[in-house]
């Protein structure tokens, strides 16, 4: 009863409609015993931050294949901060060019998981990051 579940929001910001990756990740997190709130396509950063607040999630996963990550990701981080949710861990999936990775990690993204990533990799990363944040 009093077991603490890790809650993760999976969202697709921006305008591309390729949600297979997001669904695969959602399913893998579910199989790892997490509660996954799946919000679907075409979410604005405002919608994502609001959902993260209402659902009191531990982590937010963003799937972006449109190339708009350098606009969308900083905005989501900014809004989470404005909502006093700095504690929430943000990770990315989709297509992110190598040269953008260092800056995104510097902004506070905990991991960027492109096609072919083993699910154990992000499951363990999320578990670790959430555990540290809550301790």
């Amino acid at each position, binding site marked *: 009863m009093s077991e603490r579940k890790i809650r993760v929001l999976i969202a697709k910001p921006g305008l591309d409609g390729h949600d297979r990756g997001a669904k695969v990740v959602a399913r893998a997190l579910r199989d790892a*015993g997490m*509660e996954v709130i*799946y919000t*679907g396509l075409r979410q*604005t950063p405002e919608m994502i931050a609001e959902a993260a607040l209402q659902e009191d999630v531990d982590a937010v996963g963003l799937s972006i294949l449109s190339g708009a990550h350098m606009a969308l990701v900083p905005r989501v981080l900014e809004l989470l901060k404005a909502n006093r949710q700095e504690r929430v861990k943000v990770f990315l999936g989709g297509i992110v060019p190598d040269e953008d990775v260092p800056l995104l990690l510097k902004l506070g993204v905990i991991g960027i998981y492109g096609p072919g990533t083993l699910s154990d990799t992000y499951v363990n990363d999320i578990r670790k990051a959430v555990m540290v944040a809550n301790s």
Partner: protein
Amino acid sequence: MDLSQGVLAGDRLALARTLSQVENGTAEGRSALSELFPHTGKAHLVGVTGASGTGKSSLVNQLARYYRQPASIYSERASGPPQGEFPRQVAVVAVDPTSPFTGGAILGDRIRMRDLAGDPGVFIRSMATRGSLGGIASATAAVVQVLDAAGYDLILIETVGAGQSEVDIARLAHTTVVVEAPGLGDDIQAIKAGIMEIADVLVVNKADLPGVENTEHALRGSLNLAHPLPHRFMHHGKLEVVPGQQVSPADEEPLWVPPIVRTVALDGTGIPKLVEAITNHRAHLEVTGGWKQRERWRLQTELEILLQNTLMEGFHSRLPTGAYEQALEDMLARRISPFQAVEKLVDSVG
């Protein structure tokens, strides 16, 4: 700031965190609930239940949207402004199932509720059942109490896709809306026990699909068995009169016969009628004293469950080490029956 103070002050982050504490059954959650409890009892709790894929989430989306901005939508607005008082703030509690194998869950009800994003008067919370089988989670009642105390005066509770026996929602909600859709079953399904019996309002959603008449007819037939209307007919050349359930109107409380409302949740058709039916049911409960009766029933259910859980916890902690496993082993070897095992365990605690 103290969590419960934050909830009462309208702090949404404090509300969200309190909901988590309550859902996780922590000591902090319990103390917040105790502080918030005197502020509860004001909200109208509306349950929305029905089989998977009947459109519960989409209906909840349209309902909340209509309650918040009744003028903004629908072709039916020609029929004039909506009647009655509208809630100031609407909360949605959407329940989806937990995997019995991994303990994880996909909570996907928000996908259908994107119209509600950006409205500060709406708060949506997804919940996993975490092992409960009755269609809602065991913490749903407590979560609803927190939202009630936070000032949400209409709370829509969406159950998991419910088959026939997921009827716990009837003990939690004041008004239970059962959602059906064309093509899901014949008229025998409609007279089976369970979910049909708990309906205060019946919805035939996806009313633009073929077969909607058949579905509505089956529901109406089932209702007619429970609430017969007076009618006369010729049988073997003799006039038969069936008086129906009508009693002398002076001394009896008005009877509530669940209305059947056709809706198309995707475009909002029928939503004003559904809202009217929900409002009428509330008025009916208030006039007949059913409101108080349901409150009592609801709190009694909660007390029972808490009492059982607490007693069970106490019982397990007082059992001698290994006694439980030993009893189970004895049962497996067919040395003792389940009843004897219980007797033995209860005796061992003394």
